[in-house]
């Protein structure tokens, strides 16, 4: 009896030591799902309050930013959107670029969500539906979903990566087949063909400064 228990303990220790078996890792779909649920919950929480004061808007934005930061891998997103030009940036410039890129995406993304909040009355469970996941390898996967807006179904696919068995992070979002990162890549390429990294950073700084949450930029 004791012997059996001993072997059982050994086995348990061995199982715990093998990476990835001890704790069941979240699947890509679970990772996106928990993110989506948290966003919807935050929206429900703020529904009715008009987000009319700047403090309210700031609080709302920070909450979303926090939720998104858990699952979006902004460093990889920023790096991929620069492509070959990443290496032309100094370490300091790279860091600033990642920060600005994050703010650019967040502000636009949250504004878009806010806009839709007015259109779609209640964010219910079936507004955003995750359909399936494709795991390409131990480090790359895609989660497919659609957003239901009135009668339209808009397909939204998330691309995820996982570094050496760590948790999954989103590095690209494809809306109706249009990759966000690919799109930024083409824009940054056009700018960096003629301008220096420093000048691109200045363009981004100006763009980010102009945007405010809840007040889409009017131009």
């Amino acid at each position, binding site marked *: 009896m004791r012997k059996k228990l001993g072997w059982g303990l050994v086995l348990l220790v061995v199982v715990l030591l093998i990476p990835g078996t001890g704790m069941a890792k979240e699947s890509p779909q679970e990772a996106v799902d928990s993110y989506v649920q948290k966003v919807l919950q935050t929206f429900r929480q703020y529904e009715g309050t008009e987000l009319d004061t700047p403090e309210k808007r700031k609080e709302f934005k920070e909450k979303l930013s926090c939720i998104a930061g858990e699952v979006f891998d902004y460093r990889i997103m920023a*790096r991929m959107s620069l*492509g070959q030009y990443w290496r032309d940036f100094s370490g300091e410039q790279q860091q600033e670029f990642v920060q600005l890129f994050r703010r650019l995406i967040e502000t636009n993304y949250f504004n878009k969500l806010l806009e839709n909040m007015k259109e779609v009355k209640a964010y219910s469970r079936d507004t955003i539906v995750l359909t399936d996941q494709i795991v390409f390898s131990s480090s*790359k996967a895609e989660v497919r979903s659609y957003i239901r807006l009135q009668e339209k179904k808009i397909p939204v696919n998330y691309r995820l990566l996982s570094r*050496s068995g760590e948790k999954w992070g989103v590095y690209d979002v494809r809306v109706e087949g*249009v*990759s966000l990162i690919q799109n930024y890549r*083409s824009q940054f390429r056009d700018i960096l063909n003629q301008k220096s990294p420093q000048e691109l950073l200045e363009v981004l700084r100006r763009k980010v400064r102009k945007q405010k949450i809840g007040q889409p930029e009017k131009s």
Partner: protein
Amino acid sequence: MRLRLWLALAVCLALALAGSAWAGDQSQKKESSQETDLIRELEEDFSSRDRSAVADPLEPYNRVVFRFNDGLYSYVLIPVSNGYKAVMPSPFRQGMENAFHNVRFPGRMVNHLLQGRPLRSAKEVAGFVINTLFGFGGLLKPADSIPGLSPPEKDTGTTLGTWGVGQGVYIVWPVLGPSTLRSSTGMVGDYFLDPLFYLEGDELGWWLTGTENINKLPSLMGRYEDMKDFGIEPYSSVKDGYVQYRREKVRK
């Protein structure tokens, strides 16, 4: 004999390189080497998609038209669209869009056939019958709630795509906006497949199409404004967005 010598040299060099690369890997932390592999893989994914971007030899002309369109959208069409939105509640707009979509089924049906998808063709016919009979002449789309009865939308441009015709050069049309040579050719085909242009009375088809497009303005302009908000270089953003969108439409 000489060839052999070269071969031997090449093998030695390859081995040496592999050896040094291996040694380099060993000296690095295992994690970071895995990370560089992953980054290289992603970079390869993205750059292979970059390579299938369309050529833009007309860029100087396109940019002028783009700027013209931008002014037209901002100062004319977006105000018109907002006014229309104010007087036409969303369900009415949606109903009208549905009705136009419904009567245009022949174009989609023919293109499914041309792409060798008879089943999708049959689904278009079934959808048309169901929506016309049970959706008040197509104002509602009851067929959409039947699983598997809404095939992806296909137009003549996508047919050319499935036949292996490349997208061709990028063209920005006044008013209409982004297009490619292939999509523009496809639009001619779509015109001939459009039942509205076979109605009695020469101008009726154009009037109806005009009405349809005004009705669609809110969603079209909304999409344009989104692109402008997200982008920092609107010309490239719209070009890339359009090309990616069309490529996906062919692929589906």
